[in-house]
């Protein structure tokens, strides 16, 4: 126990790093993923093509490779980002592809009549998406988006390999220095991740019940 108390500041810092990495990447993924989903269903073919290309590229590339591209590849074209920013970009850009697919499935689940009715009262494509289709689509994709979020929180652990002192990095550091306390270190790190994911799971099911719509 004394070991944990001694190392609490380090673990707490690591936890906060994981949390901020997750939140920033999560916002990026949600905004970009939603835009990509809107592109994917738009009447403009080049936008649809762009979105499909993006999704297939990021969804089918291992996240570690995305990290390498952003942190070591971008400087090759004279565009350097720091390790933390690079990690946010890598996780966010990668996760956006999955958010896009989840939101798109929600859009497809909204009946065609809803979009027809909104066009019939004179809403433009963008207005119909914003006012009618997306609000209904999001309601039905709360559970899959929750899955994406939880997977993403755990995916931030790859940043440990790129000089970001988050939870997994602190685990490596503490266990290397204190081999005798290995199990304790592992448990502490797992608890750190769960402090983010378990409340998320609870919040997700709350949100799901709150926004459910009568049909």
């Amino acid at each position, binding site marked *: 126990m004394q070991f944990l108390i001694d190392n609490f500041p380090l673990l707490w810092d690591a936890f906060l790093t994981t949390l901020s990495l997750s939140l920033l990447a999560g916002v990026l993924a949600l905004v970009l993923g939603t835009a990509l989903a809107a592109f994917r269903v738009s009447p403009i073919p080049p936008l649809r093509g762009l979105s499909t290309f993006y999704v297939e590229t990021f969804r089918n590339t291992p996240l570690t490779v995305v990290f390498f591209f952003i942190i070591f590849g971008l400087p090759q074209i004279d565009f350097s980002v720091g390790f933390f920013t690079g990690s946010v970009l890598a996780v966010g850009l990668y996760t956006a592809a999955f958010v896009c697919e989840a939101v798109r499935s929600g859009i497809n689940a909204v009946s065609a009549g809803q979009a027809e009715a909104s*066009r019939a009262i*004179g809403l433009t494509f963008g207005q119909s998406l914003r006012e009618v289709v997306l609000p209904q689509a999001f309601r039905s994709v709360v559970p899959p988006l929750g899955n994406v979020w939880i997977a993403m929180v755990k995916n931030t652990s790859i940043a440990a390999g790129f000089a970001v002192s988050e939870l997994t990095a602190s685990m490596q550091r503490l266990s290397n220095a204190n081999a005798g306390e290995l199990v304790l270190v592992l448990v502490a790190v797992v608890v750190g991740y769960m402090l983010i994911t378990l409340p998320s799971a609870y919040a997700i099911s709350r949100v799901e019940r709150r926004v459910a719509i009568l049909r």
Partner: protein
Amino acid sequence: MSGVDKWFGELHVLQDIDLSIDRGEVVVVIGPSGSGKSTLCRTINRLESIENGEITIDGQQLPAEGKELAKLRADVGMVFQSFNLFAHKTVLENVTLGPIKVRKQSKADAEKRARELLDRVGVGAQADKVPAQLSGGQQQRVAIARALAMDPKVMLFDEPTSALDPEMINEVLEVMVGLARDGMTMVVVTHEMGFARKAANRVVFMDGGRIVESSTPEEFFTNPSSDRAKDFLSKILNH
């Protein structure tokens, strides 16, 4: 509309359709299933595109896509068979969405007018419910109010009573008859012959993607000129 053709793949659903509707006229389109009557109705606000011919509303050619088309659709009210009320919005919000977003009315003005319209169609008391809490007949009347809120030049009704219980058909038809009396220009695709007799200025009978007959209701129901219409009427009016 003149010389309008539409195909669904190989299927020629609208064949060389010529139809002109005067302001204030109520045109009822009847015909067997698959005759193209719903498609005809949906081409008028371009929910279905056409391959040939042209459609003009109030002297203005139907634009292809984009903002111009949205503007035109705002002037053309549409009521669907399956109501299509916005499921996540209250009844009041359903009616005010178009006026606020498209007509740029203030929320207060739009709500005042929406409540008047909801009262007019007899569902004023349901304003704060969501669509799923309403009966089919009530939902369809809300849909009519939603279309009316845009002050349309013409109203399209695509089988507005086909999804309703028999008891609820009348409450919707009464609202429509009222509209017709008030001089609204209407195109109504329906199987309700009673409505056609009561409210129509003209009956258009379609079969196989063509307009077979176009005449006054009296003439159509008592003395149809085509064999196809005679055959159709004999099947539906005999019981």
